[in-house]
Structure formats: structure tokens, C-alpha cells
């Protein structure tokens, strides 16, 4: 049995060097005891010798485990780390990543505790500014649970690189001054300097942001254990806050409804409902559609998407319903299908800004799927409910030609089920001259590229016919 003595705050490199010697000497875990430098021991130290020629590599998982767990205060951390290392070197390659191994599980627990300790230092440490030699230095006293000062310090460099600061702890100090981070020996707790920001403003904020109706002391203590409180000035108020909570809640419950202050009435009198600009029948209709509740589709949609284009357009295109992009923007035909539609119009020689585009259904119907919305076809009831608006929109526009894009639109315009494939081409929608063709989103869904090109050509040909019919 041999003893290996390591300093309490030994880092990865120190442990690795010692462990390498042990492996070189072929010492099994039960033949070696790692201990603190200061601890007395009867076991002899490692015999002198060299570990040259000993070489082994360890997995990333082991390095990570070592990096965190070694900072733990537990006396058996070195032994456990050596035990796992021994088995890794002797063939158990994946051991460090196997959380079901008891030693690995124990070390993983240490590693978690260390990471938590680092995190708590980042969170609960408080700086107090002090004038030292004509310079403002921010000074903090903190008592970490483990050997975590070196691990925690770089965070403060990133955050407060422009300030001079000093963190004193029972395990050492870290000072940042003129762009250099220096670690020093343990220091005594400095006397607290008065600081109105911490002692008054911060304490007031902490007290005020607490909601007495939600008292959950166990949750607070779990996240902010008592041992940290001594160095957090705001926590001095906790007993009084807790003691008063019940009384405050009872008082709130007994409170009669407020008598409104005098200004409340004056402000209310100034509220004017938003004035709807209704210069034209189309604007009026747009405002009415925005408030439509004729079917449930308005519930989950962002907004009604009304038609867009010049009121004297000779052609009106009627699609099915707005899609995801249209719903967000509040404008028809701006999504992928709309862009394809624009391209086809240009190719057919139709000026997009001279035609009017709208939809048979004004709200987007969809099914939420995680972070996406899946388009859903409107049912006949919804189409019928929305026809009320489409009819009035077309009445106000009185175009020369109404174009149904796709089956839903053709159905809405003609009042019966329509097969786009068999009725494609010139059509009559009641008294209105019309045309039936594909919806551009159909072209996007054609899987085969050659067929897609063919469908696209047919669509453009339809648009040419439409242009002529409306001329």
C-alpha cells in the first residue's frame, strides 16, 4: 500500500501526473491511497522512479468527469477517479460514460455538485465598491462549498473586465486588476463597507418583488440554501417578510373593491373608439371582415386577411384561404404559393398591381404541430359562412372576370361542388363571367419535376386565356 499526497485544490494536471506514476508502477486501486497533503498517514509514498514510457489516452467523458469532480471537497474523490481510470486503462473504454457504474455515478454526483457550486458563486456573490488608493475596487467575500474559485473566476473577467475587483474566499483570492487575473492565498473576511445601493436599493427591490400570496419557503431554500445567506444582504429581511406574509394576504382578501381615483373618469371620457376610415364601400367591408365572428376560424388565427388590389381591377383572383405567411402579414398571396403566382402572372403578361387578389375564406385554418402550423382545408360550413363576405367584396369590385383558383374557390363562387380538372377554363358564376383553374399551391405539391414544369406551363396558358377574356 502506498500513499499519494495531493493538495486539496489539486487540478486535473496534478492528479493526472500522480495517477500516471501509479499506472506506471502497476498499482491497482486497492494498493494506493490518495490523501490530502496535511493528513497523517502510515503508508509509504510512491517509490522514486520515472513514468517515461507509460502512455495511455482516456476518453473525453473521463476528462470531463475529472475536470469537474476533482474540485469536490469529498476525501474519496481522488480514489474514485483513480479507480475509474484504472479500469479504463485496463480495457473498459466506455466506462466513464456509463452512468450505471456505481463509482461513475458517485463521481457524476460530485461533478454536478461542483458545477452547481460554480453556478452559485456566479449567482450569489455580491460586490461592494471601495476606494483603495484612489481607485474604485469592487470587493466580495464568498464561501464556496468546494474548490471552485479558479473555475468560477473567468466568468467575472468576462462580465466585469472594465472594473477592478477582488474576490476573497476561505480557499484563496482572485483579483482582477489592470487586465490581469491573479490568484492568491486565502484571506480573512474583509469588513463590510456601507453601500447604499446594496443595502437600500437592492434590499428594497428584493422585498418588493416578493409576492406574499405565493409563499413557498421550501422552493426558496432548495435553490438558495441558508449557508449562502450570510453574504447576501437582502436575505436579512426574509424572516420579517415571511412573518408579515399571512397578514398581508388576509388584508388583501378583506379589501373592498377600490374606489376609482378622480383621474380615472377623466381618462375614460377621453377614450375614443378607433375611427374606422370608411371612404369607400371596400374599406368599410374590410373593417367589418376584421371583426368577423361568423365561424370559429377567427379564434386561433392572427387576423382576417382581406383582398388587395385596385378597386377598379378588371380581374379578381379568388384563392382558397390565407396561409401561414399571409396570416402573419395580413396580406393575401405573399407566401411561397403567392410568389409562384407572381412569377406566372408576369410570364402571362398580367400586371400584378393591376389585378385584385382575395380568398374564398378570410381566416387561416390550421392544425398546430409543435412550432409549425399545418394547413387544413376549410369545411363547407366555413366556406358558406365566408361567402357572405366574398359576394359583397365582388359586388363592390364589379370586375369583368372572376378567376377561381382551385376547388374551394370554384365551389364558393358557383355554390356547388366543382371538379377543377373537368371544369377547368371559362365558367359562369351566377351572373358573373368567370374562369376556373388550379390553385398555385397545387403546383408546389406536384412531386415530379417534369410534371411540375408541365403543370406550370398549363397554368401560365390559363392565365394568358384569362388576360384575353378580360381584355
Amino acid at each position, binding site marked *: 500500500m502506498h500513499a499519494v499526497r495531493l493538495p486539496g485544490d489539486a487540478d486535473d494536471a496534478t492528479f493526472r501526473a500522480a495517477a500516471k506514476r501509479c499506472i506506471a508502477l502497476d498499482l491497482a486501486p486497492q494498493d494506493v491511497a490518495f490523501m490530502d497533503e496535511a493528513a497523517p498517514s502510515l503508508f509509504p509514498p510512491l517509490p522514486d522512479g520515472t513514468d517515461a514510457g507509460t502512455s495511455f489516452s482516456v476518453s473525453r467523458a473521463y476528462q470531463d468527469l475529472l475536470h469537474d469532480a476533482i474540485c469536490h471537497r469529498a476525501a474519496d474523490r481522488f480514489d474514485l477517479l483513480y479507480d475509474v481510470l484504472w479500469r479504463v486503462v485496463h480495457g473498459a473504454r466506455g466506462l466513464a460514460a*456509463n*452512468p*450505471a457504474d456505481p463509482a461513475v455515478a458517485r463521481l457524476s454526483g460530485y461533478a454536478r455538485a461542483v458545477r452547481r457550486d460554480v*453556478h452559485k458563486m*456566479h*449567482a*450569489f456573490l455580491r*460586490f*461592494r465598491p471601495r476606494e483603495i488608493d484612489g481607485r474604485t475596487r469592487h470587493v*466580495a467575500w464568498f464561501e464556496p462549498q468546494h474548490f471552485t474559485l479558479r473555475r468560477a473566476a473567468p*466568468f*467575472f473577467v*468576462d*462580465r*466585469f*473586465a*472594465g*472594473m477592478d475587483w477582488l474576490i476573497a474566499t476561505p480557499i484563496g483570492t482572485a483579483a482582477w486588476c489592470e487586465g490581469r487575473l491573479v490568484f492568491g492565498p486565502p484571506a480573512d473576511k474583509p469588513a463590510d463597507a456601507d*453601500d447604499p*445601493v446594496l443595502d*437600500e*436599493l*437592492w434590499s*428594497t427591490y*428584493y422585498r*418588493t*418583488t*416578493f*409576492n406574499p*400570496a*405565493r409563499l*413557498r*419557503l*421550501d422552493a426558496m431554500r432548495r*435553490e*438558495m440554501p441558508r449557508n449562502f445567506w450570510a453574504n447576501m444582504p437582502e436575505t436579512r429581511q426574509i424572516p420579517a*417578510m415571511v412573518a408579515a406574509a399571512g397578514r*398581508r*394576504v388576509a*388584508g*388583501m*382578501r378583506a*379589501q373592498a373593491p*377600490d*374606489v*376609482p*381615483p378622480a383621474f*380615472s373618469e377623466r381618462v375614460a371620457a*377621453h*377614450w375614443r373608439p378607433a375611427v374606422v376610415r370608411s371612404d369607400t364601400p371596400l374599406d368599410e367591408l374590410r373593417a367589418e371582415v376584421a371583426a368577423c365572428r361568423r365561424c370559429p376560424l377567427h379564434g*386561433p388565427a*392572427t387576423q382576417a386577411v382581406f383582398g388587395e388590389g385596385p378597386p377598379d381591377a378588371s380581374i379578381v383572383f379568388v384563392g382558397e384561404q390565407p396561409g401561414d405567411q399571409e*396570416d*402573419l402579414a*395580413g396580406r393575401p398571396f405573399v407566401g411561397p404559393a403567392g410568389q409562384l403566382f407572381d412569377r406566372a402572372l408576369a410570364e402571362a403578361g398580367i400586371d400584378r398591381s393591376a389585378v385584385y387578389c382575395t380568398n374564398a375564406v378570410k381566416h387561416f385554418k*390550421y392544425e*398546430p404541430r409543435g*412550432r*409549425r*402550423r399545418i394547413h387544413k382545408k376549410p369545411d363547407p360550413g366555413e366556406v358558406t359562412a365566408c361567402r357572405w363576405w366574398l359576394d359583397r367584396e365582388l359586388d363592390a369590385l364589379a370586375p369583368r372576370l372572376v378567376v377561381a383558383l382551385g376547388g374551394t374557390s370554384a365551389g364558393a363562387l358557383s355554390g356547388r361542388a366543382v371538379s377543377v380538372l373537368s371544369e377547368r377554363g371559362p365558367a359562369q358564376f351566377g351572373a358573373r363571367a368567370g374562369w376556373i383553374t388550379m390553385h398555385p399551391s397545387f403546383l408546389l405539391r406536384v412531386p415530379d419535376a417534369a410534371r411540375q414544369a408541365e403543370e406550370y406551363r398549363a397554368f401560365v396558358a390559363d392565365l394568358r386565356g384569362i388576360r384575353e377574356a378580360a381584355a
Partner: protein
Amino acid sequence: MPLDLLKKLEILADAAKYDASCASSGGSKRDSLRGGIGSTTGAGICHAFTPDGRCVSLLKILLTNFCRYDCAYCVSRRSSNVARARFSVDEVVRLTLDLYRRNCIEGLFLSSGIARGEDETMGELVRVARTLRTAHGFRGYIHLKTIPGASDALVAEAGRWADRLSINVELPSETSLSTYAPEKDATSIRRGMAATRTLIDEAVDARKPAPGAIRRAKPPRFAPAGQSTQMIVGADRADDLAILGASTALYASYRLKRVYYAAFSPTGHPSAGLPQAATPLIREHRLYQADWLLRFYGFELPDLVTAAPSGMLDQAIDPKLAWALARRDQFPVDVNAAPREALLRVPGLGVRAVDRILVARRSATLRLADIARLSGGLSRTRPFIVTADWRPTASLDDAHLRRRLAPAPVQLSLF
């Protein structure tokens, strides 16, 4: 310390505390090594916890609690008799920096009552953020509330300075909103979220290098930590499924990072027509659990209908256990063979435990003791799994299984 500043802080922090969100996570990584002050690591830090168990991460205040609106659930509504105050832009900037230098906060969460116009209010919020970022090189976290109805230009500028933007939907349905906040317009709230999502999407797309393009400076980020919203639970009559249905639509429509559920809590300035008592916190807790099932466990809304046939989640047991008890035909699940999706549906197994099981079962056949070590407890899990040394023969069919798994009622009185 000027007394009036303390007094103002008291009034304006009190008015802001009903907003549950205090997250400082997500978004870009920044530091002060090349000037300025502050950093963000992407992970968020809770700098203190108050006795309500909630984390204090940001300085959460209103710019003013003067408000022309009269929303029944809000302590700052115009008909409330609460003390009123107003911070200047410089006061907020100084307060933020002073607390930040002492390592008390991760940054600022700024909201405001709408004293005059929407644009005027939004303009002030933006001015605080701009001053912090440009005049003081502040690299910490900023969360701004977007005022519904504010102009697009102001929202676009807000997203340049802020890490996160949020607009509260407040209540799950438009009907509730028109009852309790008659002057608020649900469409304008949703339009605001739609505009924010569009701006976020555009900024993300613009930062992707075009294939073969010459490298150029990337365009600025827009609200890199995304947008979130809050719903008040228990002020109206909406049941849990209605609330979760609304969240599902919000996540899908506006790619929200989070929906916060705030149990309605008395403010000391009650309004006629609202409950006087606080909503039980357990209701809020179960909603968060269900929300997590939807986002991280592959559950869909219909699964939650199975778990909560009455429309309200079972308060005695968690929603996953409630679902599993209703769908015992899906169990037991063999932890040594089942795919990840099936493991995620086992009561008591979290995402971390499932991932550990998947790693561990590569090296060994797992036994019940292994599962206990990997998951931190077996009480809920045991009846639903098969391991090398365990099979839940009769227990799955036990009519009293629910009673056996529900924690003793005495624990519930804690809330």
C-alpha cells in the same frame, strides 16, 4: 440615497412583480473583454430567490404605472387606487448599471403602463435600451415588453437592443379578454406577435451566409432570445385544456420560446367581478408540466384530453401519470428495448433520465436498481416498466393504482 427614488422603486417594482417571466436565458453570447460592461452566457442566472420560491434574475420594473387602460386583473388599471410613479429614462439606466456592477442582476426587464400613446410609451422603453447599449456599452440581458399597437419601426428598433421581446396575451380567449380588458384588442396583440416573429425570422435568414457569397459583416441580430408571452390563470373561467389549446396555437403561430402561466393572485386593489382568492399554485404547476409534455415529450393536445377528460388537469398527480393511468394498454415499457419516444412517456422518467438510460443500456442490461440510480426514484415508474429483473404483473391492472401513486393529500396542503 434619495428617498423618492426608493419610493418609486417600491411602487414600480411592486407593479411589475405579477409578470412571471424572469428568464435571462437564450440568445447570443457576449462579454466585456473589448469594452463596455456585462456578459451573457446563454444560460441565465438566478441571482436570488424570494420566499415565494421565485428567482430574481432581472431588475423587473415598470417605467410608469400610470395607465389609461382598465383591465380588471391588473393592479395598474386606471380605476385602481394604487400609488402612482414614473421613472425617468436616466433613472432606470443608472439603477440597472448600479445593481449590475454589484452582481445582483443579469439585466433589465422593462415594461410600462400606457400613460399616453402606444408609440410614446414604446419609444421610452426603446430609449432606455438604446441608452444602455450605446451610451454605456451594456452587454447584459434586456427584456422589453412590446406595447400592442406600437409602430413597426419602434418594434424593429426594440428588437435590435433587446434580447427578448414579449407581449402578454393575458387571457386564453378573446371572450375573456373583452370581458376583463374591454379596451384591449386581441387582434392587435396577435398582430404584434406575428410582426415580432416575422422580424426574428428575417434576421435569422439574413444572417445565414448565402452559398458562395463573399463573407461580409453579418446584419444585426433581432431579439436573439426570441419572444414569450404570459397568460393569467384563474381570473376567468377558462379550463386547463382551453388554456393549453391557446398555448399550442401560440407556439405554432409565433414560435414562442415560452408561454408563462401566472396563477391569478390578489393585488390588494381588488376589482369587482374578479375572484378575491388566489388561484392555487398547484394549478399553475400542472399547466407548466403539461406545457413541458407538449414541447419536450412528444405529447399532442389529444393526449392531454385523455389525461384530463373533465377539461381540468388532475391536481393530485402529474399529467403524464394521469395519461399513463388512462392508457395502461401502452404499458409496460421495456427500458432495455423501447425507443426514446416510448421511454419519454413513462411516468417519473424525465428527459435527462431517458437520455441516461439510453447511454447506460448500451453497456449493460438494466435492472431495477439501475433505473432507480439513473432516474432518482422508482415510486411512479415501477408499475409501468419492464427491466431484466422486474415485470409489473398484476399491478398495472390494479384498480387502486391511482390511489397508490398519488402522494398523500397532506402534502398538497403545502400549496
